[in-house]
């Protein structure tokens, strides 16, 4: 079967989102294996210069209009649904993102075509696109075969590698008129509100050096920061540290703070009250250091060290330094 996939490009403030490349990479791979066309669809305003980053696609359909400058669901649905109806691709890939969630379901209902949500894999078998979707937050996988007509697939971010879709080169460019129907638009883009530049996001840190009351003084937090730097991680804490104003509330792990799931959670001088454990028990690897052998943190830790954190921290940092050099 010769494939025909449309990838709806996503961009914000003049930059293409990684989601676009993730979808393009997968579509490109399928086209290389089975033959066929990958078409990127880029709707926006003054976005033609983004075309040169879309080399993974065979063709690019560019639609420009002032009303498409920022994402708003109705203008985008309007132009993209018209295009899909006319060209009838086999599969339309849309990101499972703020934009894609708005777009995909509306496209499916407007065009009366099937929609597959939470897709994490895509393959071609016989005469069908086989789409793997997550159900129940990933506890169950569902495979769906799309045999005829057009289907919309909403792709989960991170399902495919963005690098695979990042190819320089401009695909064959076709610019089409937007043909918008603004009289029907009841929603419009007002303004873009950026979150305040804040502290680091501990939920994204791969390694957390987390401190509890055992750190004793605010000055000692610098020791944890040095260790975190040596490990390539960030510093988080239990609630008493935030209550003392030694760290901002953005660093707090637990019931009243963040739930984290880093690759490594190093708990230093944290006793492990249930309220804290609730926020970190799912970390891949938990290493706890505490002077009290009965501290409850040891019941969730994979490795436990009964020792003074002020002995362990410098020793660990020294060994890490040796490794680097």
């Amino acid at each position, binding site marked *: 079967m010769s494939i025909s996939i449309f990838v709806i490009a996503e961009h914000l403030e003049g930059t293409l989102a990684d989601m676009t490349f993730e979808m393009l990479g997968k579509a490109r791979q399928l086209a290389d294996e089975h033959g066929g066309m990958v078409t990127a669809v880029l709707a926006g305003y003054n976005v033609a210069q983004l075309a040169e980053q879309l080399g993974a696609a065979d063709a690019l359909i560019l639609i420009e209009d002032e009303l498409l400058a920022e994402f708003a669901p109705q203008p985008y649905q309007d132009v993209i649904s018209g295009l899909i109806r006319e060209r009838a691709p086999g599969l339309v890939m849309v990101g499972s993102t703020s934009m894609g969630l708005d777009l995909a379901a509306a496209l499916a209902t407007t065009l009366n075509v099937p929609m597959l949500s939470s897709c994490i894999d895509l393959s071609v078998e016989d005469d069908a696109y086989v789409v793997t979707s997550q159900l129940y937050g990933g506890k169950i996988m569902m495979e769906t075969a799309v045999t005829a007509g057009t289907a919309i697939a909403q792709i989960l971010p991170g399902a495919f590698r963005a690098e695979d879709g990042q190819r320089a080169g401009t695909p064959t460019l076709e610019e089409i008129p937007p043909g918008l129907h603004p009289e029907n638009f009841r929603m419009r883009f007002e303004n873009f509100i950026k979150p305040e530049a804040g502290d680091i996001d501990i939920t994204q840190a791969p390694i957390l050096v987390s401190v509890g*009351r055992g750190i004793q003084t605010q000055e000692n937090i610098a020791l944890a920061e040095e260790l975190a730097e040596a490990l390539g991680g960030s510093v988080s804490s239990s*609630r*008493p540290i*935030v*209550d*003392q104003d030694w760290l901002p*509330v953005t660093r*707090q792990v637990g*019931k*009243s*703070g963040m739930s984290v799931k880093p690759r490594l959670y190093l708990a230093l001088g944290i*006793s492990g*009250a*249930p*309220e804290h454990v*609730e926020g970190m028990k799912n970390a891949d690897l938990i290493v706890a250091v505490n002077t009290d052998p009965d501290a*409850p943190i040891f019941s969730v830790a994979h490795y436990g060290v009964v020792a003074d954190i002020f002995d362990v921290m410098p020793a660990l940092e020294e060994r890490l330094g040796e490794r680097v050099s």
Partner: protein
Amino acid sequence: MLAGEEVIEQMWGVSLDRLYESAEGQRILSCIQCGTCAGACPYGEHMLYPPRRIITMLKAGLIEEVFDSDSLFKCVNCYTCMTKCPREIKLTEILLPLVKEQSAVRLEEMPAELQKAIENTYRYGNSYGESARKRAAWIDTIDVPIRILAKDPTPVDILWFVECDLSYHPRGQDAARATALLFHLLDLDFAILGPEERCAGDCGRLSWEPGLAEALVDYNLSIFEKYRFNRIVTNDPHALDAFKYRYPMFEFKYKTTATVPELHRHLDRLAPMLSRKLDYLVTYHDSCCLGRHNGFYDEPRALLEAIPGVRLVEMEHTRENSICCGGGGGGMWLDTWYKQQDIERLSDRRLREVIATGADVLAVACPYEVSRFEDAVKLAGYEDRIIVRDITELLVEALGGH
């Protein structure tokens, strides 16, 4: 104080727009603006609209302004204003929950921790987000036989409603084990619902999410109907409140009491078992729901005094003047929010009174309090000076041979 049935009669079906049609709404009109409620409120100083001003605004038709403020996020359902009101206006039972519900609806963003607790309770039947199947997992950690009704549905005298904190929180489980042992030694005929039990929908959640509370009431009532028992006993004073004051609106007819008064009923048999001397100076923190709302002030003290060696000392604010631990009314899930508002947690404030007594042990009777006060002790750095224990834990410690 009104009789239970009378209160229920007056609370049923009262909504803000129909408030004045009810006897209780009429009573609000009798407010003399004395300000006792606002002065007695533990967080009154932090509220733009403390109870007295809410009534003023209500009378002036400006209640929307109250809804738009976050004043009632600082209400911990401690029943102080209501208990002190010379006009006996049922603030905590009627007016404040109605205002809270409206404030929550208008809030741009629910505090994340409270929202998560509410969502967990909806999905899993407990605020911890733990599986319902693990609700009775703690019973495998003791040697006392505990009957689960689903496995053996023969009629039983006491349905012991264990509640979420005693089922899931490790420190709550300590009290669950202690309670089970005491019931067993007293030869009480009791059984639990185990995995079939769900949160009773305590006073806090009843006020923020009445829909969720009703769903929980419906569910628990459908489970109660399956079994035959004479009465309900629960360790959680919030569940006691739910069963005594809210469930009867939904045709719940079971007699309910809390573990502390239940144990007190058997004190003549319990006291001789307490053979081990505990040389502790103990201060008792009155739980709002057990004390102010249900009048159990003497029973917990009598149990503590039955322990040989224990000497009781009272805090500055005690019995009906006790200061809330800050966990009620959803406060249990607003700790970080309070911190961000620069408001001192009530458990931290209360701990200063505890320390001032010089006591070695802070005795409590509500499952929220152990973790809240242990946290406060840790924060203040008093780990070496004071320990926090549930009354049932102290009784078991005094059992000696058992």
